């Protein structure tokens, strides 16, 4: 698809600035997001190509404003909810619960 992900050759996006001594993960949640692929792709029955397509189907504005592993999380949400493994309601409830915890501790 001619989506927002196909950025090759576009002007005006600014330089690519490689991070010196870039860590493998910038925060612990990124490591968990990485692990979710191996933990879900077999039992949820999707291929790496379907996973990539789920990222391409993100809202274009959200795609440009979010980080690499946020793209992954968006794909997991799409793939697991469309298969009925997780419902949108369960996802929203968990987000609300975690937001409360964050507010309490900080």
């Amino acid at each position: 698809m001619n989506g927002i992900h196909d950025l090759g050759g576009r002007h005006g996006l600014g330089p690519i600035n490689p991070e010196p001594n870039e860590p493998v993960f910038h925060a612990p949640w990124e490591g968990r997001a990485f692990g979710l692929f191996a933990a879900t792709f077999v039992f949820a029955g999707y291929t790496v190509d379907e996973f990539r397509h789920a990222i391409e189907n993100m809202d274009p504005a959200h795609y440009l404003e979010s980080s690499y592993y946020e793209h992954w999380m968006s794909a997991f949400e799409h793939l697991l909810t469309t298969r009925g493994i997780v419902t949108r309601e369960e996802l929203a409830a968990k987000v609300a619960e975690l937001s409360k915890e964050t507010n309490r501790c900080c």
Partner: protein
Amino acid sequence: MLLTPELVPVVTSTGASARVAAHVAPRFRAGDQVLIRNWQPTTHTRLPGYIRGKKGVVEKDYGVFAFPDTHAHGKGEKPQHCYSVRFTARELWGDQASDRDSLRVDVFDDYMDPR
């Protein structure tokens, strides 16, 4: 199948390779001149837009892999060869590009024709 602790080293060392152990005849070989098709599906593809309609030269045959365009949509692996194809910077970006630069892109059999 659930991911168990014993499976983790296996999965993390081999990854999710799309290589397929099938014998499929290659349509091209190193040195062949190719023209990239004007392929614009609304579905998944690994063909970058900026090489459509461009001329390149096959540099290397990587072997046989699942075809992403069908594999992403439950339409089978359609195993085929994937190649490293070289494009000059001027072919892709026009006359303002350096005449010394070139770019290599991984291209599947179904994305190109001989020229």
